[in-house]
């Protein structure tokens, strides 16, 4: 696979909410933050259940785990999302047995990704999405797909030091809209972009 060209984020600055409200970036100590992680390397793996790659990934649907610094999320019964540093993701992808019905796509440039972090992050998602964000339904490590503000998104709960945090990814063309909408929905909870 060829080296990726220079990355250009789908999210522009300065930050303005969907409702047109300018929002100043904050520091990492803010209680509720939204960070653009679109530049993070993202690979999409599809592998049939009879393949060796399926067994190598060994992450069931709707769950996630971390291996060698790479987050492996089972977004669909035969599809995984690999997220992490470029070298680590490429190394893990390179170890996969490509025999059989296995496909590997570099989604770094085609997918936008944001990290919503803070105690109130589930409340923000509840405003935008019909899924159940209660701890017993979507605990740390849960990987789900659904409609967020009418955009189909893959969401992984990936808590940071015990603080609820969600990685939200969508098609790149929806990135700016989704970022602005999340900022808009989070205003009542004091959300700030990082």
């Amino acid at each position: 696979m060829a080296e990726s060209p220079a990355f250009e984020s789908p999210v522009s600055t300065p930050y303005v909410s969907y409702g047109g409200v300018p929002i100043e970036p904050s520091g990492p100590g803010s209680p509720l933050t939204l960070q653009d992680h679109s530049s993070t390397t993202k690979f999409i793996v599809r592998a049939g259940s009879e393949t060796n790659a399926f067994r190598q990934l060994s992450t069931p649907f709707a769950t996630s785990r971390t291996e060698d610094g790479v987050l492996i999320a089972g977004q669909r019964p035969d599809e995984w999302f690999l997220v992490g540093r470029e070298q680590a993701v490429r190394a893990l992808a390179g170890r996969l047995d490509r025999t059989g019905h296995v496909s590997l796509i570099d989604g770094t440039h085609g997918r936008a990704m944001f990290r919503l972090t803070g105690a109130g992050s589930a409340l923000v998602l509840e405003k935008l999405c019909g899924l159940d964000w209660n701890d017993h339904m979507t605990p740390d490590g849960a990987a789900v797909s659904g409609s967020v503000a009418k955009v189909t998104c893959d969401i992984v709960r990936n808590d940071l030091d015990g603080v609820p945090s969600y990685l939200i990814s969508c098609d790149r063309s929806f990135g700016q809209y989704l970022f602005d909408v999340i900022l808009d929905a989070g205003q009542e909870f004091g959300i700030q972009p990082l």
Partner: protein
Amino acid sequence: MLIVPCPNCGPRNAADLRYVGESRPRPDPNSASAKEWRAYLYERANPAGMLRETWYCRSGCRRYFVLERDTVSNEFTNPPTPVAKLGKRP
């Protein structure tokens, strides 16, 4: 709001899925008559009662599945069956 039980994702808002239509066996293209094809493509039973139908989970697992719905009460009776397990396309 109609809540549809997806076999992979669990209960989901129908807006997250696509209604494919009544689930019926596809005629054999090598032996079906024009009348059979017309009936398969255009004729619908549309009953007031139990209907076997196909749904597509477009926002979640992206799988087709078949279930039975009471078109009067919108209740789903039997657990959904993934189309892959039926061995035929919707």
